[in-house]
């Protein structure tokens, strides 16, 4: 099983992408399956085993939440930008991580970067701190809580770490 699907999520992604690209037809299905299985096997040596996220539902919820946040924060950052620079209070915060594992951390940092107004600048050496740059930093703690509750904890659940 794991030799056939070294990366199940990838296989899924590849399958869907192929179908999206070529439309839904018998020949395409066959090819999609072929690639979904073939490519991961081909690149397996280059991709170490990924931690399995075994709550698909939570994943979807997380994703939707992310989308909503993006839209929301987009608008207020937009307003922020239209005001004068003087009112702006940019700053850096050091976010102490509980989350571990490369993939989860990557997802977290990408999430942070994707939502306008915050930007994951760098990790500390042992990945215990994530330095986050904030466009408008009036309430540091609020932002930290926000990140922790909305993203980090859910990710912890998803990846069981």
């Amino acid at each position: 099983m794991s030799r056939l699907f070294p990366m199940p999520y990838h296989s899924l992604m590849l399958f869907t992408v192929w179908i999206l690209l070529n439309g839904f037809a018998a020949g395409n299905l066959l090819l999609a399956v072929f690639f979904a299985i073939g490519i991961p096997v081909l690149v397996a040596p280059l991709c170490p085993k990924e931690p399995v996220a075994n709550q698909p539902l939570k994943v979807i919820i997380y994703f939707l939440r992310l989308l909503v946040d993006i839209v929301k924060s987009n608008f207020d950052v937009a307003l922020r930008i239209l005001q004068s620079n003087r009112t702006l209070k940019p700053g850096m915060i050091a976010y102490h991580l509980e989350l571990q594992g490369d993939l989860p951390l990557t997802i977290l940092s990408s999430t942070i970067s994707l939502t306008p107004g915050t930007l994951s600048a760098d990790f500390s050496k042992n990945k215990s701190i994530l330095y986050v740059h904030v466009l408008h930093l009036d309430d540091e703690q609020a932002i930290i809580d926000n990140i922790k509750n909305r993203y980090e904890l859910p990710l912890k659940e998803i990846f069981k770490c």
Partner: protein
Amino acid sequence: MLEIICSILLIIGGIFILLGSYSMVKLPDFYTRLHGPTKASTLGVGSVIIAAIVFSASNGGVSLKELIILLFLFITAPVAAHMLAKAALHIQVKQRKDSVNDKLFEQAKQQKDRQE
């Protein structure tokens, strides 16, 4: 109907893309400017893409393949931003004088494991 949605989406997209680039010109220091493009890449391009989907729906065959672009962007854009921030910290790009937690920039550069 679909046309109207499409048009609205296009306008939103346009505005946000413009905002992104505008902020990149306007904002005071590199780190703040770095926030700009995220808008372009997320909501801006996002709504344009959805507009495209809606449009394709409006003349019959709905094709979702534009979503793939969105997927790609969502995967890659943060990395670019992250790398840029990292690089900026490394080459000690000056942040604005009155930035909050000024010293943290230095720590971030050295990737300190605990904050003093």
